[in-house]
């Protein structure tokens, strides 16, 4: 690979201080991430093969090198078998992917014209609009989800408004439905879609549009054939930034969703905190990790080739 080529780095012998500095700068954050980000996944994987017991911690060890030398491995597939047998988990996984995918698409539909408008605005207006997109991103996620509870509730503002106008007689059930979950995800994640879209649209060379127009393309043709393909990196980055965390979302389905709005993040959370079944929660997490690992790799690739 590229290692075979001599690189323009230090040919001379590095002084000890420089070497230590280099090791320190690379080593400390690297070690931290290995210890607290990568290694924990191995432990989740390990515990997903354990058996739950009433103890502290509430799971069995996988190895027992005691007297019985033939049965030292105590790992079990039971947790995974249970996952495949109980419909609840499949429904949760499927529904999470579906809700995340549809929400991502809605974010794209709403966010693209906004990003486009911001990128084409005059510089001063552009800065103000950009700040207006970033501002909700800095304010509390939890409280922004909570704001919708006041709007959508049975005695909420939307219902009382509709009744006052005379459109409906009795309040609609809006809170604790799937619709509320979609609304909550789109509402909280849309800045993540707009910002990468804006970044690619802003960099785009507008002379291409003029060229397309000069050559007789209609505005929508220019959009489909020039703007849209060129903004693909932003579309991909934005979609992954919304889609991946949305799959495992817990807060939004817990606050806005009904009892039947099963998303896997909520199922995992309840398995852990309500049923206190750590091994099963670990198995649920392992499968979720397998689902998100390919999108995450795509995301990293999209981060690495911006030039």
């Amino acid at each position, binding site marked *: 690979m590229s290692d075979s080529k001599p690189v323009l*780095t230090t040919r001379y012998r590095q002084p000890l201080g420089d070497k230590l500095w280099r090791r320190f700068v690379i080593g400390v954050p690297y070690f931290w991430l290995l210890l607290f980000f990568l290694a924990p996944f191995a432990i989740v994987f390990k515990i997903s093969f354990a058996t739950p017991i009433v103890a502290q*911690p509430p799971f069995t060890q996988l190895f027992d090198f005691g007297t019985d030398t033939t049965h030292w491995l105590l790992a079990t597939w039971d947790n995974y078998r249970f996952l495949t047998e109980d419909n609840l988990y499949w429904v949760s996984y499927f529904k999470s992917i579906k809700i995340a995918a549809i929400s991502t698409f809605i974010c794209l539909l709403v966010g693209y014209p906004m990003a486009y*408008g911001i990128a084409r605005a005059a510089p001063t207006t552009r800065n103000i609009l950009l700040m207006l997109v970033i501002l909700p991103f800095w304010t509390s996620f939890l409280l922004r989800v909570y704001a919708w509870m006041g709007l959508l509730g049975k005695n909420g503002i939307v219902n009382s408004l509709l009744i006052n106008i005379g459109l409906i007689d009795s309040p609609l059930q809006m809170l604790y439905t799937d619709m509320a979950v979609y609304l909550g995800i789109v509402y909280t994640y849309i800045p993540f879609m707009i910002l990468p879209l804006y970044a690619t649209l802003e960099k785009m060379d507008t002379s291409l549009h003029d060229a397309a127009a000069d050559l007789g393309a209609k505005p929508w043709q220019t959009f489909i054939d020039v703007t849209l393909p060129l903004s693909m990196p932003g579309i991909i980055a934005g979609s992954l930034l919304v889609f991946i965390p949305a799959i495992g979302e817990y807060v939004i389905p817990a606050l806005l969703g009904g009892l039947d709005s099963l998303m896997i993040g909520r199922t995992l959370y309840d398995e852990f905190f309500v049923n206190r079944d750590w091994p099963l*929660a670990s198995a649920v997490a392992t499968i979720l990790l397998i689902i998100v690992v390919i999108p995450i790799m795509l995301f*990293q690739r999209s981060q690495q080739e911006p030039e």
Partner: protein
Amino acid sequence: MQKSSRFVFSALCFGFAFLYIPILVLIAFSFNQSAIASVWGGFSLRWYTALFNNEQIIEAALLSLKIAATSATFATILGTMAGLALTQMGRYRGRLVFTGIIAAPLVMPEVITGLSLLLMFVSLQELIGWPVSRGASTITIAHITFSMAYVAVVVQSRLSSMDQSLHEAAMDLGGRPMQVAFDITLPLIAPSMLSGWLLAFTLSLDDLVIASFTSGAGASTLPMVIFSKIKLGVTPDINALATLIIGTVSMGIIIASLIMFRQNKLNKVG
């Protein structure tokens, strides 16, 4: 052309209305005399007084601020180092894995990060007896881990868009790497380190899921207290709290961007 710009304009209006109306309604109703969410009973500050007399909330807020300040500081140090390691350190063994795991915490579903960190802490406790108990310290470690990724991305993007000639010149003139980092690179990236710190601070202040997993029985952060209150429905004193938080953050952002805007202007004039 006319038609398409009208479409973009209405999309912007709709989008910003969608983003802001819920927040504005929430703020308005925090001054509501009535306890019922949709009935306006006149202007009142009663929910603010109720909030400041709620010791549980004050205590949780102080704990959250402490955790946020500590974790943001460590995350900024580690994230800046990671940013340097990714842009200015050339090649080294394991660089590929490093680049792989630095951006992953950004998108990793919170339930996975939370569960895996908790199980890590439990295993470490069994192995080496540390951490003795879970609480503020384990939440802080968890917050450092995910927010250092944000700092690293912010710092890295600044470093890679920066003119490398100053760095190279300093090295050519015989500066030692550490000296160059402290005298040249760090002052240049200080603004992005500051925004990285602020980002880490607000992320920590806002986190519910990871804190719930990594906390022990004793420590409840502000989002944990808020969540347990709002799970059952709308409570007006949380509206007051939300108004205070959103107001403070917005003020900070607006002031910061005004300062940056003015500096940019001055730079252009000067």
